[in-house]
């Protein structure tokens, strides 16, 4: 184990460190850092004053709002800024007035799950779980049967663990055809960095986004609220965000988020996502060739191009992560409790993966900036570590 005694540097920029946990949040893009630094130089932070300087700050804020609206193909008045992804999901679920039921997919993020449980309690309505198949894809036929008229439905654009993309447009179509008049909230937080969101934005009524998944700042989120959706604010006070959310806006953070979102648009247009997908598939193949015993989750579904989530039989996630960490490879289990300890993921269990396999999950997530050299190093380490633990 002499290789591990030489500890890699703590800096993500260090050449000895390979960061493959982009799904947890990517490091701030340099262009974003620059835009944030420029945003407020010489301006007061509060855009809500009656004087010229507040108006100038407001101008910066509204420029960013329009930039985000254009990127997503919505009206600027439909963009509500929040304090981050969890708050967006909370508002998108707890802020919907008088639903007849709360229906969420079995693979939602805990920010949606907990908000949905609270909403069901608050409105004294049923909380209905919509099943997924073994690939992790929503079963639309069953969903349509389970969802009553007037329900609030929350289904994510793509799963944060497996990267499996959900058929939001098809769900909307099937519900219209049924017919069911429902409100759809879509948590697009995990999908936003590596997926064209136009079809999701078109199909859903409420869409949650978060800055830090885009290479933007954390604690900065967006909830798109389509025109006509009746909302009740959950964070109340000055009513700054069109009475849907109170609190002084984080203008620099919002500028950072707008810049990050535009950067992802440029990457997609350049074809960087396709390059990333090819790299991801090559990484998966390399590991699978050495260790055919691993199971790649959602392999047969349409997935985000940067996600590789797999289980190693007879091994627990924390041991894989510890050994990879020692070799400078930053990875994740995919699911952790509040202490940070990996746990059997409810996503994998909902897909029918057994508990033992679910405890041996490893998630490697790429960014468009991830290089072939980094992935070669990661693959070698992953293969070595699996061999060591299965010996």
């Amino acid at each position, binding site marked *: 184990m002499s290789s591990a005694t030489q*500890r890699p540097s*703590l800096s993500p920029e260090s050449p000895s460190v390979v960061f493959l946990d982009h799904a947890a949040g990517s490091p701030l893009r340099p262009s974003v850092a620059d835009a944030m630094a420029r945003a407020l130089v010489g301006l007061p932070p509060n855009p809500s004053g009656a004087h010229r300087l507040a108006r100038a700050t407001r101008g910066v804020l509204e420029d960013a709002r329009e930039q985000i609206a254009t990127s997503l193909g919505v009206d600027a008045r439909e963009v509500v800024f929040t304090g981050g992804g969890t708050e967006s999901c909370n508002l998108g679920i707890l802020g919907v007035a008088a639903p007849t039921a709360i229906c969420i997919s079995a693979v939602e993020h805990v920010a949606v799950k907990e908000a949905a449980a609270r909403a069901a309690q608050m409105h004294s309505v049923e909380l209905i779980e919509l099943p997924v198949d073994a690939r992790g894809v929503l079963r639309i036929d069953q969903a349509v049967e389970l969802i009553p008229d007037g329900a609030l439905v929350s289904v994510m654009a793509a799963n944060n663990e497996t990267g499996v993309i959900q058929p939001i447009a098809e769900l909307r179509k099937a519900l219209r055809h049924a017919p069911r008049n429902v409100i759809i909230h879509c948590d697009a937080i995990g999908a936003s960095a590596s997926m064209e969101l136009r079809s999701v934005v078109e199909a859903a009524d409420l869409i949650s986004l978060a800055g830090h998944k885009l290479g933007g700042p954390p604690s900065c989120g967006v909830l798109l609220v389509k025109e006509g959706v009746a909302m009740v604010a959950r964070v109340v006070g000055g009513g700054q965000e069109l009475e849907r959310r109170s609190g002084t806006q984080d203008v620099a953070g919002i500028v950072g988020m707008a810049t990050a979102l535009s950067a992802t648009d440029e990457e997609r247009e350049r074809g960087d996502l396709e390059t990333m997908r090819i790299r991801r598939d090559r990484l998966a193949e390399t590991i699978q060739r050495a260790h055919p015993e691993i199971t790649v989750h959602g392999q047969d579904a349409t997935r985000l191009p940067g996600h590789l989530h797999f289980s190693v039989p007879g091994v*627990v996630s924390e041991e894989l992560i*510890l050994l990879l*960490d020692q070799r400078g490879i930053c990875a994740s289990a995919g699911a952790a409790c509040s*202490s940070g*300890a990996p746990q059997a993921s409810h996503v994998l269990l909902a897909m029918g993966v057994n508990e033992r396999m679910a*405890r041996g999950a490893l998630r490697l997530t790429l960014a468009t900036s991830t290089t072939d050299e980094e992935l070669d190093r990661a693959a070698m380490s992953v293969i070595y570590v699996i061999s060591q633990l299965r010996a």
Partner: protein
Amino acid sequence: MRIMVAMSGGVDSSVAASLLLEEGHDVTGVTLKLWDGPSDTGCCSVADVDDARRVASQLGIDYHVANMSDEFTHRVVDPYVASHGAGETPNPCIECNRFLKFGSLMTMMDRLGFEALATGHHARVQRINGRAELLRGVDAAKDQSYVLSMLTSAQLENLVLPVGEMTKDDVRAHGTARALRTSAKPDSQDVCFISSGPGRRGFLEERSQITAGSIVDLQSGETIGEVDALELITLGQRQGLGLDDNGEKRVAVRVDIAQKRVEVTTPERSMIKALNLREDSITWVHQALPRTGAPVIAQLRSHSAPVAAWFEEHRLVFAEPHHPVAPGQTAAFYDPDHPDVVIGSAIVAL
């Protein structure tokens, strides 16, 4: 050496990690996530994990959280509940040490290529005549050799106990000098998975049957009172069981949940001459089975005074009459010629 330090989020294991680092070892901190439910430091003891993580970052060492909650439930919590149901008073910390910290974690330490496991226990590992021995900690008031008495020589070979040579005051001073976040943190006192709200009673009630019963005087055979939870009575207990003819508190000497009774007697008559030990629970540091008549120093509680005794088969015979000891409790054995040296342990039988 590459050493894995089990960091609980307390001052002792924080300082253990710091000491090893300053000695030049390659140190990685690991916290075990053991309990899923509520605890006095937040669900999953998040506050303790945060403290350990912060200390690791202050020290600049690698740090990970390992999830052993399923095994903890299976090996510690479920037996704890079952043991109460059988009229015993179990010691869950000893079972956690046996199966988790020095079982699964030690195996994990080895599998991950570390050379030793370190903890913050106040006890010492020393090589005496070429063999690893477990000794009491230097700070008598904080000595934790009792809760480690089930360790075998094979486990001791891979164990480092850096704070065993220090007093608690010295440990805190070391932490304070390095501004470690946990330096002034109070010692943990209670069972980690039982929160002060529902307490032991609420915890057991949620998971098992609680039985009301009669208090029966052992001499007269008469029922002299009632208790509402036999499972919560510890043999030897003197609280809540009424007074004897001399005005002294009566002592519980037998808890019989099937017959729904607790037998009590006077403190004088409650004294015992010997204890039965659970045969399958006896461990020896060096695997040497005791001869009948072999003398030992026995300690029956975490910080009780050690007493002279000897073995007769699977019985521990006291040199002097002893207060009753609850079944489920652990007896730690020390070498009469070297009273600091642990030689083995056993669980008191029903």
